[in-house]
């Protein structure tokens, strides 16, 4: 068996520096009856909290889900910081269902403690009191974790605010463009650059533990697949074969990549690459374009795009089986870039809908297809790890922007870049 040559890229000591520029989140539509909630400014710990407005982070998270409507601070008559100080009758008059209060405090060992309390205004009861102890640098993440806990307590589904997204940013006019790969918090804050190149970067994919990113880079003028350790910046080229090296995605156990290779004759097929040994296994053998493979949650098979029937459609194959791949999509003349929901029941894909490229969900049990987005040219859907939202790339005034939509289609939001265009968002896993 041929052993794959692992070439160490330019491993730098400092892998990534935070950029000052951020993505800006705007909620574009929400549910018709969002739950009213008042997130009262938390007691501060100056200067240890670095000036972070924890309550604002929590409120924006909850609102971005579309399920909540936060009370404006100017409407708050009271500003309690403990549940005991909450005058439920007074808040009830202000027509809010819940009040969140809390405190940020500096501990003797240099860490920061964040306490939150949730009060049900209708009963007057304190129903929940999560707290987190973190290093000062992780205070924003702790605020997202508070939002996750509150969301789960009220909605009954685990929140995915304390997660990250990866995306590609492109600046400059053709033919001279600059490509960058970023990781940011799910709300677009805390942006960190992973890679920069004068040649295209595409198809980022998270490892299941969130420690690694696989991506395609043309830095050698031809395509190659790299895996890069997010914190250290250590970068390893795992596939640079003749022809196309594309569309990497991790297996659920993190040990393999599904990828697309063409060989020098230009025929794209799906392969499996075992990362430790470099062993390559062919999964498809068809003269059409086979690409964009994604593993099922149990790792037993992959969904992928193929135009073997004449136009791109989604197929499914079982790894190790000699059965022919089964076609999954039958609605419309263009279905591509499948992504599977964490519970394995829904397929998100790019579909040609009334002449526009839009994001759709296909129910895998009954085949029902629901178009979720409304733009003309959208692409790259990716599920949040709780399966409640999708992030995808859309366009706004001719520039690429990131958008989110809830799987019921009711809530959507937009993440605008301050410069250039952003695309190919991929939602990372839950953090430990």
């Amino acid at each position, binding site marked *: 068996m041929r052993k794959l040559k692992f070439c160490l890229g330019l*491993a730098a000591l400092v892998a*990534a520096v935070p950029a000052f520029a951020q993505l800006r989140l705007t909620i574009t539509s929400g549910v018709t009856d969002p739950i009213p909630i008042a997130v009262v400014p938390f007691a501060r710990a100056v200067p240890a909290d670095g000036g972070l407005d924890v309550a604002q982070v929590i409120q924006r998270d909850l609102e971005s889900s579309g399920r909540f409507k936060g009370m404006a601070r100017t409407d708050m008559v009271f500003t309690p910081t403990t549940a005991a100080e909450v005058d439920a009758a007074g808040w009830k008059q202000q027509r809010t269902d819940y009040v969140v209060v809390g405190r940020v405090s500096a501990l003797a060992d240099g860490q920061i403690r964040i306490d939150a309390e949730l009060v049900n205004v209708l009963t007057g009861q304190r129903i929940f009191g999560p707290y987190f102890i973190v290093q000062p640098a992780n205070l924003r993440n702790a605020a997202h974790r508070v939002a996750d806990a509150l969301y789960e307590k009220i909605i009954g589904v685990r929140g995915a605010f304390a997660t990250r997204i990866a995306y590609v940013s492109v600046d400059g006019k053709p033919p001279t463009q600059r490509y960058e790969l970023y990781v940011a918090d799910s709300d677009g804050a805390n942006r960190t650059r992973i890679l*920069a190149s004068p040649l295209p970067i595409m*198809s980022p994919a998270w490892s299941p533990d969130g420690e690694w990113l696989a991506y395609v880079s043309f830095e050698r003028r031809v395509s190659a697949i790299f895996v890069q350790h997010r914190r250290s910046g250590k970068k390893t080229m795992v596939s640079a*074969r*003749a022809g196309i090296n594309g569309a990497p995605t991790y297996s659920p156990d993190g040990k393999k990549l599904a990828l697309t290779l063409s060989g020098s004759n230009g025929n*794209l097929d799906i392969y499996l690459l075992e990362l430790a040994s470099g062993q390559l296994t062919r999964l498809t053998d068809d003269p*059409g374009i086979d690409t964009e493979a994604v593993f099922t949650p149990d790792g037993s098979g992959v969904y992928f795009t193929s135009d073997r029937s004449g136009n791109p459609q989604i197929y499914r194959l079982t790894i190790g089986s000699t059965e022919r791949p089964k076609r999954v999509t039958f609605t419309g003349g*263009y279905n591509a870039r499948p992504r599977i929901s964490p519970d394995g029941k829904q397929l998100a894909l*790019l579909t040609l809908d009334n002449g526009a490229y839009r994001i759709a969900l296909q129910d895998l049990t009954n085949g029902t297809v629901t178009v979720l987005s409304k733009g003309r040219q959208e692409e790259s859907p990716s599920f949040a790890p709780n399966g409640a939202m999708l992030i995808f790339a859309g366009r706004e005034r001719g520039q690429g922007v990131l958008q989110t939509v809830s799987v019921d289609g009711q809530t959507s939001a937009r993440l605008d870049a301050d410069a250039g265009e952003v695309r190919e968002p991929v939602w990372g896993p839950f953090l430990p």
Partner: protein
Amino acid sequence: MKNLALISVLLASFTLIGGCKSKPPEAPPAPAPASTADTSGVDNAGATAGDTDATMGPSGELLSKRVVYFDFDRADIRADSQTVVAAHAAYLSKNPGQKVRLEGHADERGSREYNIGLGERRGQAVRRALALSGVTEAQLSTVSYGEERPAAAGSDEQAYALNRRVEIVYLK
């Protein structure tokens, strides 16, 4: 009705551009030139995207044309590009030491990795045309950039038409 027309164009084009039977991928290519990307978080000052420039290669009315354009979702060489491809074929046949890289591109519509496949089909179409005219395989290589390196900005048919292309790049 527009959709019907679009779908029929799609269907027609895909039946026209079926590929040939594939074989397993080959060994990794020769060691790479120095990487131009960086993970240091610092700007890659001075790095350029090209290892060639427009002055490379032969001159002449036809030979100075280095771009072959394609119709929407098509990979067949249009009649208006046949003479350009033929001129390059003749030149390369006479100069067997000269190598070219065929860079295939797609317009921005649709899925990015699928468009990498479409760009490759176009590159392979030009490769086959050159090979049929006597250019040796050793002189030819392909790369597909899909929709990642547009020649023209914009989301209109004019830009799309300029972006669906194969660039014939003469190598040093």
